[in-house]
């Protein structure tokens, strides 16, 4: 029984590591990180080589990629979308903006940084980071995703 369970847990962890789906969220950034994120999908970088798919619905996603300093108007949507993602989930903050607010830190309409609202697992520094750095950040997030607890269909948790 124990051996079967551990095989199951290993399989799930392995599958998670090979099938992370992304959802991308721009929290009021300048587009710079977003176009570099988009560039990750394209032939030169191709995130699909890591088994990644960019999803249109947060309900399908495992990794939330956030760019932008979190403006007053996007904050509610950010929290809703994070809540809509089923566990296990990890958050990647792309660029300086979600980490600190960057040049907008003292703006009255910026409420960030991101970690005030949702837990952040990986920071990718840069303004904007190169696509290969974003890939590295996502690969790092995948490693974190694997370590999250495994729950069976019955909802039981296997550490």
């Amino acid at each position, binding site marked *: 029984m124990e051996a079967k369970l551990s095989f199951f847990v290993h399989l799930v962890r392995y599958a998670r590591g090979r099938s992370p789906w992304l959802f991308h*969220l*721009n*929290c*009021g*950034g*300048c*587009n*710079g*990180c*977003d*176009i*570099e994120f*988009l*560039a990750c*999908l*394209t*032939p*030169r970088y191709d995130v699909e080589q890591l088994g990644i798919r*960019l*999803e*249109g619905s947060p309900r399908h996603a495992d990794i939330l990629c956030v760019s*932008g*300093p979190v*403006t*007053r*108007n*996007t904050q509610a*949507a950010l929290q809703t*979308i994070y809540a809509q993602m089923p566990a296990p989930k990890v958050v990647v903050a792309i660029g300086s903006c979600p980490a600190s607010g*960057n*040049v*907008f830190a*003292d*703006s*009255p*309409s*910026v409420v960030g940084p991101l970690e005030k609202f949702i837990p952040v697992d990986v920071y990718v520094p840069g*303004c*904007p980071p*190169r696509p290969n750095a974003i890939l590295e950040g996502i690969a790092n997030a995948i490693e974190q995703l694997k370590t999250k607890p495994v729950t069976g269909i019955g909802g039981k948790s296997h550490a």
Partner: protein
Amino acid sequence: MSYTIPIGPYHPALEEPYKLELECEGENVREAHLQIGFNFRAIELIAQSRNIIQNIALFERVCGICSNVHTLTYCLALENLLGIEPSLRAQYIRVIVAELERLHSHILWAGAAAHILGFQTLFMTCFRLREVVMDLLETISGNRVNYAMNAIGGVNRDLTDPQTIRDGVRQIQKAVEGQLLPIFTNDPTVRARCAGVGILTKANAIAWGAVGPTARASGVAQDIRQAQPYLVYDRFEFSVPVQESGDVLARILVRALEMVESCQIIEQALEQMPSGQWKGQLFVELPPGEAVARIEAPRGEVFYYIASDGSEKPLRVKVRTPSFVNMPTVRLMLKGATLADAPLIQASIDPCYSCTDR
């Protein structure tokens, strides 16, 4: 059955948060409401609390796609206020970077349009081509998106390798003429989606004050680079592509032809570029007064106004971006269109919400 379908603020087709509420009748759009402001970062306000050198980097982050446009216009306005003129070589470098940025912006847009059309292969083709421009810009400036090239009275980095740029630009011109133009104009599925969709008439384009490629696709021949040349644009031979039909296809064509013109401007600039001083200077104070500058960004006219009271910080910086004036035309184009056309039509003006919201 009538229903309201919200597109955004977070939507797979859009890079930026904004909301388009479509009142639909079946698949047909009856009315469209646009809601912006998700990107509002109060840049104009925080610019008043920063000194003029800090503001160069701040305005670069108004928009990540046309970052160079904003610093260029800001620096031009500052130079007008200071009454100085950058050296000739600096002006040529600025032109080359500005045109490379136009190339990158238009290719990005073509890719985004293909993405919205659901044409993944074309999207990938465009983005593969875009990497050529990005590599050039990264080699020149040290960053793929925020180039930090402009300084007051000059540029921050010299162009050291004109041959690489020439090769890259030729490769882009060949690909635009050989791949993008024929597919966008001849491919049956693309034509079926773009031709005759989202028409903006010339009268409407003028009445609603459209600028840039959106206006030029509706037959309004207007380009600041020719109407009121800045930098050294009066030294180049180039034409301004104009289309009459005013539909999505026309806007695609205008941008594709503009890319070819940009390639030619860059080649001419590399040919003519003199040697000499290029470095900017560190100004810490402005004379009291006001100044404006306007240039032709990839999306249309960008306008900057600066007022100073003689201190190190500007009293007011006002930015007017092209997307802001182009956006209301989307409502005209959307009426009577189908739901499937809506994302394409709104994307066809190449809207930049982070520019607009600031």
